[in-house]
């Protein structure tokens, strides 16, 4: 069991990191988008590995299903090919970006190293990650947040329609 878990982990890690790198570095936006889809599925795999079934499903449905499609739509709509033209941002951008990213990695790595002394996964309870478990908390403890976020979605919809209209 443990061996399977470890193999699964390694496979998923490879997938996730590789697809992320493709997203960042590839010239064609369509390929980036598809790579992102792979990344999202890999993350869903991670969730499954962690016993969070409901969220794994949600990840696939919402992220890989809805958001990815949306992005693909827009890419097709605008017929974006690859990037071209001068780099107006100047050299400072190309120097500082790797530096800052490295700094970020260092900081987070340091935090993980220091902060997770003796951290272990416990044997999870049988209803960890079930719909019932999450649903109960969602509709009792986090009720107001739930309502708020639904409102947020309405607002986002209206906003998107307004922004993208050709004539108001």
């Amino acid at each position, binding site marked *: 069991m443990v061996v399977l878990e470890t193999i699964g982990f390694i496979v998923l890690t490879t997938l996730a990191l590789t697809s992320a790198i493709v997203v960042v570095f590839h010239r064609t936006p369509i390929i980036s988008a598809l790579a992102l889809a792979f990344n999202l599925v890999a993350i869903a795999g991670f969730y499954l590995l962690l016993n969070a079934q409901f969220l794994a499903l949600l990840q696939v449905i919402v992220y890989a299903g809805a958001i990815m499609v949306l992005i693909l739509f827009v890419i097709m709509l605008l017929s974006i090919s690859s990037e071209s033209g001068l780099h107006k941002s100047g050299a400072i951008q190309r120097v500082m970006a790797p530096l800052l*990213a490295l700094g970020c990695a260092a900081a987070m790595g340091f935090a993980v190293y220091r902060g997770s002394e003796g951290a272990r996964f416990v044997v999870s309870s049988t209803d960890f990650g079930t719909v019932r478990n999450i649903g109960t908390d969602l509709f009792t403890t986090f009720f107001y947040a739930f309502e708020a976020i639904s409102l947020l979605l309405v607002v986002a919809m209206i906003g998107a329609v307004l922004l993208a209209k050709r004539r108001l």
Partner: protein
Amino acid sequence: MLKLIWLIPLLPVAGVLFNGVFGRKLSLKTVGTIACLTVLIAFGLSLGAVLELAELPEGVRQFETDVATWLPLGELGMGSNLTIPWGFGLDPLSSVLLLVVTGVGFLIHVYSVGYMKHERDYARFFIYLNLFMAMMLLLVLGNNLLVMFVGWEGVGLCSYLLIGFYYDQPFDKRTGLSCADAGRKAFIVNRIGDFAFLIGMLYLVIEFGTLKFSELNTALAAHGGTPGWLLTGIGLLLFFGACGKSAQIPLYVWLPDAMAGPTPVSALIHAATMVTAGVYMVCRMSALYSATPEAMAIIAAVGAATALFAASMGVTATDIKKVLAYSTVSQLGFMFAAAGVGAYGAAIFHLMTHAFFKALLFLGAGSVIHGLHGQQDIRKMGGLRVKMPRTFITFFVAMLAIVGIPGLAGFFSKDEILAGAWNSGNKVIWVVLSVAALLTAFYMMRLTWLVFFGKYRGDDATWSKAHESPALMTVPLIALAVLSIVGGWVGIPVVMSGWVGFGDINKMHHWLAPAITEPGGSHAAATVHDAGMETMLIVVATVVAALGIGLAWMFYRKDGAAAVWAKRFGPVHNLLRNSYWVDEFYELVVLRPFYAGCRFFTAVDRWVIDGLVNATGATAEISGQVIKLFQTGLVRNYALMFMFGVLVILYYVIRAV
């Protein structure tokens, strides 16, 4: 009436307020009447108060009243006991000055009504004149140094206002001084003296904790542990202030230029009252000065030197008022010399008689100027006694008085000064004063001769229009002439009254004695002089006076003699004509460095202080120019800045954990 002495300075203030509000619309007669009335009532009150004072027994002949508290510093818990009241006091010393100021002041007010007939702005004139009276009375009646100082400064202010009365007229063609400049010069030179006066007052406060005269006298009589040098220092500081106010060396330079003001102003302020404030102050502080022989010696020396110095300049002056101005400085020198040798009573006596005849001389000069429609140069006068008989007679009487002809006022006071100088042991002072007296006689005779005798040297048009002055002007002249004759009779020395068999009728001496502290710490007892010596001195003084008059008559008898003498004594004459170039010296040594300092500080103000302020603005601007470069407008650069900020926050968060 004694209880009402606080009212005396307030009466002229009423005149100021009334004329200040309504004066512009009223006629000269009304304005003048109001002004004169306030002074007359003040004189009446003063007379009543002095008479009441005289009824008190000799030992307790003083009165004080504290009307209100001014500076209750003791109650403020600042660790001092100093309390300064608005206090007024009357004792024999201030009584003399009180009557002189109000009496002579009243006569001059009446004269001014006639003199200012053709002037514009007469309301302003009488307002300033009344204000001056109020301030002078405050000075005289104050029972502590600070109230006196208020009056001191106030008369300085009024002097400035009145000298610069014709503010838009030029005054001295030779130096380019305007009347306004002359006023400023007077005020500023006064202020230099006042600064020393203030410091002297501060030291008095530190040492004695009070400024009230009565308390100071008590403290000084107690021979406390005050070191001699401190007393000398205070005395000299106060005296320096007196030099400024009473025009002694080195601060006399403003008085000749003060002649820019109208003649009644010269008569009142620069002859009879304001300039005598210094003498009054010194005599008031006689307890202090009698305790420091060093200070007294310096005062005597300065006084005598000034007397001689100024008299020499009066010999060659050609403006009728300037001669009288130098004469005033010289006579003030006499008074200070008297105080310096310990004869305080003599100084006050001379102050009184001098007020009479000097005011008379100035008013007479004003009458002459008025009659000649503005001519002031004596080279263009002559033979005016036929045209202005009353002016001539009163002027002549005054001349005799100032010269010291026996029987007239000046004789008795001057004699007492000379006797005091001789008896103090300092014969040098006596010699200097006698030479000054000789010169006094000389230049006064010169003046009288050149103005009233001989042939008229001006232009015919002025001669034909020359006229005697109206009654409003000549009546005060006559009154002052009478005073110049009889005014000295209150101080007839024992020696002389002995000739005719009377005893000691020197009323002045007796009246003043309790108020003055003689050297040696006791009040002046009737000092017994060597009768023979004193008679000798009287004879010498008379001979000197007669000699002066005779010499002047000899020199100037012939027509055109003045010019001849000027050429004969070429360089000496030049020196005297230019007043020893003292003004130019001050300009070079004091004023030029001062102006350079002013220019320096202007530069500091403009470059350093303004520079600092501007630099602050410039810094803001430049830093703005630098910081704006961060705003490239490019979203990616902003994203970089985001990231950077996130890393900073991460750093702090991780550090905390």
